[in-house]
């Protein structure tokens, strides 16, 4: 080793003195993170252009009771705080009950309150961007709830699964209605969220309950299908808009038999809102909608015909028509009559 190298080694050894530094304070790390996200949210609000819609009379009156009419957004009345106040006035009891409901699962007593508070948050916002963020958040929630149930050995109900799908589809619907630049931004967000959720379900081990395996497979397939739509939409937003409009025309009216007003579109399970009717699509008798969860298979096997969005041969890997789709699930779940019954469903 030359003198030069030896001296350089000595310099490098001295630099190594800087390796050992005291660890970061956890409290300061948390504060720093919170401030960063707060700044990001503030910027996000100024970057997006919310649609301004004049509220109707009763909404305006209700909002005016609880929302500052000043131009500046009041930090004193957050949307959740507003919900708590409204719930307390309408239903009595403490707003803390509503707050406590936010972490409940479908098998718990306060879950209905959680869904109602979500619905209220959607109603009380007129901004498409905010609605999108809410639907993304609610899709995350349904995803986490289903995973928690499965990990606990409980079978998520058809209703819970359908709600999850509804939130996912709402995000696509909202994105497709936005101007192109906003739509692309929105779809990038949706893609990230769906990938997160897809990864979580890929990592999920449903061994505790055999029926959960079928649920997980259906959800994976649902996510894959919607991810594919997002990818197509990113390449061509106009196509997504056309797809969502066509998809919407085939939807039933919102199913309110469970008290939740979130529309239940073509369900993952083939069961409309848990009514227990099995078999084919009850609203469009005849040919099931490919990928709609009705009829044999979820589309990647069973050969129910070509891609409805394009006439002619199915798109390879589209999960329509015969042959393997993008998911490795061997066969789609068959809707079984009375699937809503039996077992421990939540």
């Amino acid at each position, binding site marked *: 080793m030359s003198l030069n190298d030896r001296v350089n080694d000595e310099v490098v050894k001295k*630099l190594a003195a800087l390796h050992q530094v005291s660890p970061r304070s956890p409290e300061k*790390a948390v504060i720093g993170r919170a401030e960063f996200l707060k700044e990001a949210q503030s910027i996000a609000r100024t970057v997006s252009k919310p649609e301004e819609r004049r509220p109707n009379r009763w909404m305006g009156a209700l909002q005016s009771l609880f929302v500052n009419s000043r131009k500046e957004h009041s930090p004193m009345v957050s949307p959740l705080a507003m919900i708590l106040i409204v719930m307390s006035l309408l239903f009595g009891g403490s707003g803390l009950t509503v707050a406590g409901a936010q972490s409940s699962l479908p098998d718990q007593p306060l879950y209905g309150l959680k869904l109602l508070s979500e619905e209220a948050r959607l109603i009380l916002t007129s901004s498409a961007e905010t609605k999108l963020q809410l639907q993304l958040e609610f899709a995350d929630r349904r995803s986490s709830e289903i995973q928690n149930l499965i990990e606990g050995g409980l079978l998520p109900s058809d209703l819970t699964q359908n709600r999850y799908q509804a939130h996912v589809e709402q995000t696509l619907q909202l994105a497709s209605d936005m101007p192109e630049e906003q739509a692309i931004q929105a779809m990038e967000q949706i893609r*990230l969220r769906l990938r997160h959720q897809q990864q979580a379900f890929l990592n999920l081990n449903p061994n505790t309950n055999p029926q959960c395996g079928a649920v997980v497979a259906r959800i994976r397939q649902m996510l894959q299908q919607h991810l594919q739509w997002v990818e197509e939409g990113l390449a061509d937003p106009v196509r997504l808009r056309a797809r969502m409009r066509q998809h919407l025309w085939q939807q039933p009216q919102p199913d309110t038999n469970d008290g939740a007003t979130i529309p239940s579109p073509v369900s993952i399970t083939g069961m409309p809102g848990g009514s227990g009717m099995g078999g084919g699509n009850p609203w469009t008798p005849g040919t099931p909608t490919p990928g709609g969860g009705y009829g044999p298979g979820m589309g990647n096997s069973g050969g129910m015909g070509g891609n409805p969005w394009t006439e002619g041969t199915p798109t390879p890997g589209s999960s329509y028509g015969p042959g393997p789709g993008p998911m490795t699930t061997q066969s789609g779940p068959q809707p079984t009559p009375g699937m809503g019954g039996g077992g421990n469903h939540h």
Partner: protein
Amino acid sequence: MKTFNEIDLLAGARAFDMRSLADIYDNYSPGLYSYALRLLGDDCQAEDCVSETFSRFLAALRNGKGPQDHLQAYLFRIAHNWITDRYRREPPPPVELDENVPGGDHVKTEAHVERRQEQEQVRLALRQLTPDQRQVVVLRFVEDWDTQAIAEALIRPVGAIKALQHRALEALRRLMLTEKNSRAKDRLYESE
């Protein structure tokens, strides 16, 4: 385990997806804090550096700018520039010579004091390098980055990075040997 790569995180960040931005902060803020603390020697200043780095990142995103890739390199570049500005604005702190050691484990405390002094001396030497020399030598020998990653951070070719590294080590050798000789002389005078 990181599920998504930098490209996905950046796409989410540009869309102001909160989860992506939170992931970015969680992934990169610890490394940035350590880097800043090593160069500044003060935890409050290191926190300021991290905070300002991410704030500038958000400002770039808001203006439609920011990195298309190499996010870590981009963030470290911002932190480095902030630290360089701080060096220019503030004089270097004096190296403390704590002669009055409080009671307790004398040996352990003395070792701690010696380590702190050594760190301060290294920081002093680093401050006298050019900003690029300093960033190269710290990323290479303190943060253990490879040359390619450093090239991305400085937006320079690998050859230029190696040249900077060579000149930085030469400069540090002169500075540290000069300092070492000076302290040796001081000890000699004290003993007489």
